[in-house]
């Protein structure tokens, strides 16, 4: 970890957008609104379900709601749930607006700062001809206008800067000053479960601005660290951010379904909240590509929120909110994945597949709800890890 003095605010690296006091206050309001909704308003949905929606469902169907889909049906007309949903959706849109204002104001400065280089030996390789996958062109994931790939000007870093600031607000600071909790947690799991593992090369798939990627530089100082993503603006920003923090990472613009690395190039392949932003078909292609890229004995680990089968039906229903309300079309289906099945389908030995929970590496106990629910990202206090050893 980079030395940070203050664990309650985002780390100020070389390309983090500056904010005026008003701009910062607007972002802080969104963070407070999100926390208020998650900690004080969202729990009323359960009472609305018990007191109103469940009895109505029983009356209409003569049966108990059993699955999360039944509960969704039962709750679809509930006025409390719909009002909460509307506020939740607004908090997301207000978040993007609050971070776009300062980024739009200082974009030329951010682009100039990103071009400065820095002290590390990292590299950046862009491919303007890369076809942006359909699942990123269809809708803008989690309502971020333009997604990871849209370029608004030459050498654009806008949506890298937007994403970096927004993730801190979205997770309400509970992923730490570097937004690195998912990477740090994945690393903790790897170290606990594979203490002798010494990867020579590590690939972070769907790395965006490198929130998790940089943690691998410190955790495995002997390894070469690579990050790929389909979006040029997030990669330019990731490169500049890493360089300013003195972390050596080799970023390149590639689709994880088909990369240009040679067979067996990596010992460790990781992804952090990548899987739910792909598709059932793409995710299988990604796993086949992992199989090709891994050396024998190598490890692939994907970090996500828990699969619905591990949760009570009501909690699964609340976690599934994003599928229909936050432009996360693959969220629901990705939460049904079974590691052994995917391993078997993609040429791995299913006996070497795993699913695990690892407690969050970052301590933010007082602000965690310990619930996995829509609009409360990073509040669960643990991440779900799945993957396979080759």
């Amino acid at each position, binding site marked *: 970890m980079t030395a940070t003095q*203050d664990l*309650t*605010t985002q780390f100020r690296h070389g390309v983090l957008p500056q904010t*005026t*006091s*008003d701009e*910062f*206050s*607007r972002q*802080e*309001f*969104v963070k*407070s*609104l999100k*926390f*208020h909704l998650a900690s*004080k*308003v969202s*729990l*009323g949905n*359960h*009472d*609305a379900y*018990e*007191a*109103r929606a469940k009895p109505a469902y029983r009356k209409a169907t003569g049966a108990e709601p059993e699955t999360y889909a039944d509960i969704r049906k039962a709750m679809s007309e509930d006025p*409390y749930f*719909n*009002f909460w*949903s*509307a*506020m939740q*959706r*607004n908090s997301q*849109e*207000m978040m*993007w*607006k*609050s971070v*776009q204002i300062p*980024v*739009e104001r200082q*974009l*030329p400065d951010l*682009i*100039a700062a990103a071009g400065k280089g820095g002290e590390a030996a990292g590299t950046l390789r862009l491919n303007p001809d890369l076809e942006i996958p359909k699942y990123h062109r269809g*809708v*803008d994931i989690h*309502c971020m*206008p333009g*997604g990871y790939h*849209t370029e*608004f*000007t*030459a050498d*654009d870093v*806008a949506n890298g800067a*937007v994403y970096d600031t927004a993730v801190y607000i979205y997770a309400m600071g509970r992923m730490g000053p570097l937004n690195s909790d998912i990477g740090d947690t994945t690393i903790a799991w790897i170290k606990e479960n594979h203490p002798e593992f010494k990867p020579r090369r590590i690939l972070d798939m769907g790395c965006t601005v490198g929130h998790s990627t940089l943690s691998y530089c410190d955790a495995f100082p002997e390894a070469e660290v690579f990050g790929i993503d389909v979006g040029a603006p997030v990669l330019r920003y990731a490169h500049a951010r890493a360089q300013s923090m003195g972390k050596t990472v080799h970023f390149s613009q590639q689709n994880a379904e088909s990369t240009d690395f040679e067979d067996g190039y990596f010992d460790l392949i990781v992804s952090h909240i990548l899987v739910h932003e792909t598709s059932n078909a793409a995710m299988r292609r990604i796993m086949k590509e992992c199989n090709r890229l891994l050396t024998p004995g190598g490890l692939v680990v994907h970090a996500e929120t828990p699969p619905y089968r591990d949760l009570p039906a009501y909690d699964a229903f609340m976690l599934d909110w994003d599928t229909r*309300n936050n*432009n996360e079309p693959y969220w629901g289906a990705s939460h049904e994945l079974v590691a052994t099945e995917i391993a078997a389908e993609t040429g791995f030995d299913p006996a070497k597949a795993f699913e695990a929970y690892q407690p969050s590496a970052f301590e933010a106990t007082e602000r965690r709800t310990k619930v996995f629910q829509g609009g409360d990202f990073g509040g669960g206090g643990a991440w779900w890890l799945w993957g396979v050893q080759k």
Partner: protein
Amino acid sequence: MAEHVTLQKKARGERPQYFADPAIDKTLAITLALAGEVAVLRDRIDTIERLAEAGQAPTRAAVDAYRPDATVRAERDAWRDTYLDTVLRIVHQEREELEQRAADTKPYAAVIEEVTQVD
């Protein structure tokens, strides 16, 4: 590179409609944005007061450049949480009512069991 670049404001994808009349969706969006702007103004007043208390002139430049430290941020977080309790009063009222009704759906026998249990 000095030209002003305008970012895309609408995320691609159909926006869900939460109320029968789309005007209600818009009105809620505007109300929440206004609640945010009131909080921004309140922080600005708080900044002016803190600068004055520290013997600094609360000029626009000084206010714009002010960065709250961890203590001030925690105080403002607490203020905003209370402020949201006030602004969202009607939502909290409904939540309380639902909480009571949900508790009432428990069978009486469950209540007996609850009060007779020893940890």
